[in-house]
């Protein structure tokens, strides 16, 4: 079976600093895949390259069999990939509801706006209560809910989620992970998840990749992951 997302030899970075030196990975339909690795070794850069926010300078990225390398970010959303950034990039001075409305910007998502809004409100009932509140006044956990919900509003087939639990309390972290798990289980949306915290990633993901110095060091099924080797890679 061919993969939903295929990344082949992707090279990328910022200005004159290379970050990715030929990354290969693939994600199959319906999977949750964890991308682990120490900070500053290219996990976020890879997600930015896939989503078109910061395009790769080399290599190939294919989604549903089609080459999407170098497409502008808005066309990648139209292809069915939603990027949920670590920085969140919420529309801070706009209410929660308008953030979700803009989440459904692309034509396909606009047509399914009502159903998708019900779906995300069902997933995050808190957001219905906070509908009229500006995002800048939300707690960290609520802001993360908006970021995930806004991504879902695009009707994506695949989510790229970058460190969704960063800066949250242990209780909220658990909540965020449970909702990602539910999204995957109930809607079958494929997830590529970047995570610092190994425990969470192993619990959620079916497979993991370890990215170090801009390359994939190894790939393992989460159930048989060599936790010792992962920890070692972090130091």
């Amino acid at each position: 079976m061919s993969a939903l997302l295929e990344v082949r030899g992707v090279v990328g970075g910022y200005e004159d600093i290379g970050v990715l030196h030929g990354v290969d990975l693939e994600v199959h339909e319906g999977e949750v895949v964890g991308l682990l690795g120490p900070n500053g070794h290219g996990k976020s850069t890879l997600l930015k390259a896939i989503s078109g926010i910061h395009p790769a300078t080399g290599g190939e990225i294919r989604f549903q069999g089609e080459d999407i390398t170098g497409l502008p970010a808005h066309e990648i959303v139209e292809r069915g990939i939603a990027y949920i950034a670590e920085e969140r990039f919420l529309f801070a001075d706009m209410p929660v509801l308008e953030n979700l409305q803009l989440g459904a910007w692309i034509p396909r998502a606009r047509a399914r706006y009502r159903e998708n809004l019900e779906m995300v409100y069902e997933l995050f009932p808190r957001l219905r209560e906070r509908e009229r509140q500006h995002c800048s006044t939300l707690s960290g956990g609520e802001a993360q809910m908006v970021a995930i919900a806004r991504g879902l509003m695009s009707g994506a087939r695949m989510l790229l989620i970058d460190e969704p639990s960063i800066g949250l309390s242990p209780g909220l972290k658990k909540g965020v992970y449970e909702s990602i798990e539910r999204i995957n289980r109930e809607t079958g949306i494929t997830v590529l998840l970047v995570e610092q915290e190994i425990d969470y990633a192993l619990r959620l993901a079916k497979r993991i990749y370890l990215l170090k110095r801009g390359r994939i060091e190894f790939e393992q099924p989460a159930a048989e992951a060599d936790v010792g080797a992962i920890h070692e890679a972090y130091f």
Partner: protein
Amino acid sequence: MNEFFAALWSGLMIGSLYAIMAIGLTVIYGVSRVFNFAHGHVALIAGYLAWLVAFELGASYIPGILVALAVMVPLGWATYQWGVRPLMRRKEADFATLLLTLGLAIIVQFALLEIFGPRVKALPEFFSGSVNLWFGPISYHELSLVVISVAIMAGIWAFMTRTSLGRAMRGVASSVHGARIVGIDTNRVYGLTFALAFVLTGVSGVLLGTHSYMTPAIGWDWMIKGFIIVVFGGLGSIPGAILAAFTLGVIETMVTLYAGSLWIWPAWLAVFVLVLTLRPQGILGGRTA
């Protein structure tokens, strides 16, 4: 007392013209973070074009204005796509767009000088006659300027808050990356923002052309007034610009009445410095709409 009310009316009337002028400037800044130093000259292009088509080529007034405003659409779009967009990717984009828009202003000024000459031109008033209120006469023309301006403000407000394109513009203003990851083609939104803002700026040029006069160099005065209003109100904020425009309009006529028109600029700058000392972000800074 009658003088006071007459000056207050004039202030509100001028304020409504300034508001339309400032909205175009603040919309461009709010969405794209580009300060358009050619703003006054863009307004002049529309004023002169309306004059040319309506009175020199002999079409009548309304077609003249419509042609002038229609030209603003591709002009705004092209200014973004061919002028600003290639510069936005650079690290020194702020400085580069400053030079670009200053350069455009100079080019427009000398093009207008070449085509229309240095003589003062004014557009005729829309209506003649006046109505008497308790403090004195109000001309129908001035009344129409206020009505048109207020209608445009209401229209912009509705557009920004009720339409999906307006919402997308506010989204781009709020977070460019946020806009990109929800699938908004930001270059298209920037281009449309410039087109919309240029039309508004063109309207303000026509209205100012009927109220005062046009010379190829007066674009600088209009731009600087717009700059003060927009910074006073909070860069990028539409309600802030409207509030600032009315405040400064009333200050202008009150100062003229009680101290003389020589004191308009000192008074404007004094209020400007005072407000920015107390509130560096402007009176309604930090909000787009």
